[in-house]
C-alpha cells in the first residue's frame, strides 16, 4: 500500500476519533502557518504545550490541523517503518507528503499530508518523550507545513532590539545560547536559542518557542536566567537547564527584521571581532546547521535561505565574554 494511502487512512481515523471525543484544538501561529493542534493520548503529551504558549493565535480559515498521538494507532502500524529500519532515520519529503521517522523517544513519527493540509505526530512510547521535544515541540511538523509558505524553520538563535534582530548560526556547542542570553541580560528581546523561523523577502525572523536550554558549564554565568529554570534534564548524557523565558521580566519578541547573520568561530571566546564572510560559506553553513536537525525539502530551503543570505550581511564572529561589550558590539550591526 502506498505511503500516502496509509497516511490518509490514519488521518481519517485520528480526525474521526478527535471529533467523536470532542478533543479541543489549540491554535498557534508559526511564521506563515496557523496550526490547530489536538492532543490525543495520556497526560505526558501536555508537557509539549507550554513552550509554544507565546505563539497562541486565533483560528484562521486557512489553518492546518495537527493531531498529536500518544497511544497505539490500532490498525495503522503499517505507517511505521519496517522493523529493520526503526533504529534509523527515515525520510520522505515531496510535494504531497512530509514523512520523518526518528529513532528518538523510542520512535517518533511526523507525517504531513500536504494536499489535505493535515498531519500527525505520533509518539509510539508516550512515556519516553525526550526533553528535546518538550523544549522544541512539533518542530518537524512546523517544517512540514511550511513548504508552501515563504517561511522556513532553521537551526539558529536570535535576539532583537526594537524590531531589528541578529541571527546566530552554528552547530550545537557553537555558543548560540550563551550569546543570545548574554544579550538578553543586556536588555535585548529573545526570539530563540536554537530554533527560529525565517523568511527572505523581506528578511524576517519569528520566534517558535519560549524555551532556552543551558549547558551545565553556563549555569553560573546566567544566574538571572536560571531563575526561570523549570528543570535540569539529561540530554543524551549532558545536563541541560530547561528555561522558560516567559517567566523572566525580559521581553520576548514575536518577530523582527534580520539585520545580520553571525557565525561564531569554533573554539571559544575572546575579543569581540566580526569579519566579513563569503555568502557561499554563509549559505553552506546555514544549510548544514539546519539540515542536521530539520531534514527534507532541501531545494526549497536552499532557495529561501540563499535569498536571505544574499540580502543580509554575514559575519564570522569571535564573541566577547563580557555581556556589555558583546551587546554594544552587536547593537552596532543593527544600524
Amino acid at each position: 500500500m502506498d505511503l500516502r494511502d496509509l497516511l490518509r487512512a490514519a488521518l481519517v481515523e485520528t480526525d474521526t476519533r478527535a471529533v467523536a471525543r470532542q478533543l479541543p484544538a489549540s491554535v498557534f501561529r508559526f511564521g506563515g502557518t496557523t496550526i490547530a493542534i489536538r492532543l490525543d493520548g495520556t497526560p505526558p503529551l501536555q508537557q509539549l504545550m507550554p513552550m509554544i504558549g507565546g505563539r497562541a493565535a486565533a483560528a484562521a480559515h486557512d489553518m492546518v490541523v495537527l493531531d498529536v498521538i500518544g497511544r497505539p494507532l490500532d490498525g495503522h502500524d503499517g505507517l511505521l517503518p519496517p522493523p529493520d529500519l526503526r533504529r534509523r532515520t527515515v525520510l520522505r519529503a515531496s510535494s504531497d507528503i512530509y514523512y520523518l521517522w526518528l529513532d528518538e523517544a523510542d520512535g517518533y513519527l511526523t507525517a504531513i499530508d500536504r494536499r489535505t493540509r493535515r498531519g500527525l505526530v505520533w509518539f509510539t512510547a508516550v512515556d519516553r518523550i525526550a526533553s528535546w521535544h518538550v523544549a522544541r515541540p512539533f518542530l518537524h511538523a512546523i517544517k512540514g507545513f511550511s513548504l508552501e509558505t515563504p517561511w522556513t524553520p532553521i537551526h539558529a538563535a536570535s535576539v532583537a532590539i526594537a524590531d531589528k534582530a541578529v541571527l546566530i548560526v552554528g552547530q550545537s556547542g557553537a555558543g548560540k545560547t550563551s550569546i543570545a542570553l548574554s544579550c538578553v541580560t543586556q536588555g535585548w528581546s529573545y526570539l530563540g536559542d536554537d530554533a527560529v523561523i525565517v523568511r527572505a523577502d523581506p528578511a524576517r525572523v519569528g520566534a517558535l518557542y519560549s524555551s532556552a536550554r543551558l549547558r551545565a558549564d553556563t549555569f553560573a554565568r546566567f544566574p538571572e536566567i536560571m531563575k526561570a529554570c523549570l528543570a535540569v534534564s539529561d540530554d543524551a548524557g549532558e545536563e541541560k537547564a530547561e528555561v522558560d523565558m516567559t517567566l523572566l521580566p525580559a521581553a520576548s519578541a514575536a518577530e523582527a527584521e534580520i539585520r545580520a547573520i553571525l557565525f561564531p568561530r569554533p573554539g571559544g571566546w575572546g575579543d569581540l571581532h566580526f569579519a566579513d564572510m563569503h555568502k557561499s560559506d554563509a549559505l553552506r553553513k546555514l544549510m548544514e546547521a539546519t539540515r542536521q536537525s530539520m531534514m527534507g525539502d532541501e531545494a526549497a530551503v536552499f532557495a529561501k535561505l540563499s535569498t536571505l543570505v544574499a540580502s543580509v550581511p554575514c559575519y564570522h564572529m569571535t564573541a566577547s565574554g563580557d555581556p556589555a561589550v558583546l551587546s554594544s558590539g552587536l547593537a552596532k550591526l543593527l544600524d
Partner: protein
Amino acid sequence: MQYRLSSSPNVSARSFGDEVVAAHFVNGIYYSLLGSAAQIWDGLMAGVALETIVARMAPLSDADAADFAAAANRLVETLLAEQLIEPAPDAQATAWQPVPGADGPYGLPALERFTDMEDLLQLDPVHDVEEMGWPHANPAPAR
C-alpha cells in the same frame, strides 16, 4: 558547447555575483566557486558557449591564455562529473559579459568541494522512501 544547471531536483545553485554556491542534496556535497570560476559559472548559466566564455574571460586573467582555457575545460569536466551541470546543445544564450575582478586580474578557475555533510550522512544515513511509497526503501538512493 553549452551547458545548464542539472535538471535533477536534488541539485541547486545560487550566484551571488562574485561567488557561487552549488549543492547536491543526495550526497550532501556543497561546492563553492570564487573569482574566475564564478564568472564562468554565470556564463554557462546564461547559455553562453564555453569557448565564448573563455575568449571573454582570458583577457581578464593574468594566467596564460592556453592555461586558462585548459583550467576552464577542467572545471566544466568536474562540474559534469559532479552532476551539477548537463549539456544543453539547444540553449538560447542571453546577454552576458564577465565582470572584471575587483581585486585585480583573475587567477585560474577552481572548484572547492565541501564534504562535511556527506560525512555526517554516512555516519547517520537517511533512508529515503521511493516514489511508489512504503515500504520500498531505497537501499542506495540514486543521485
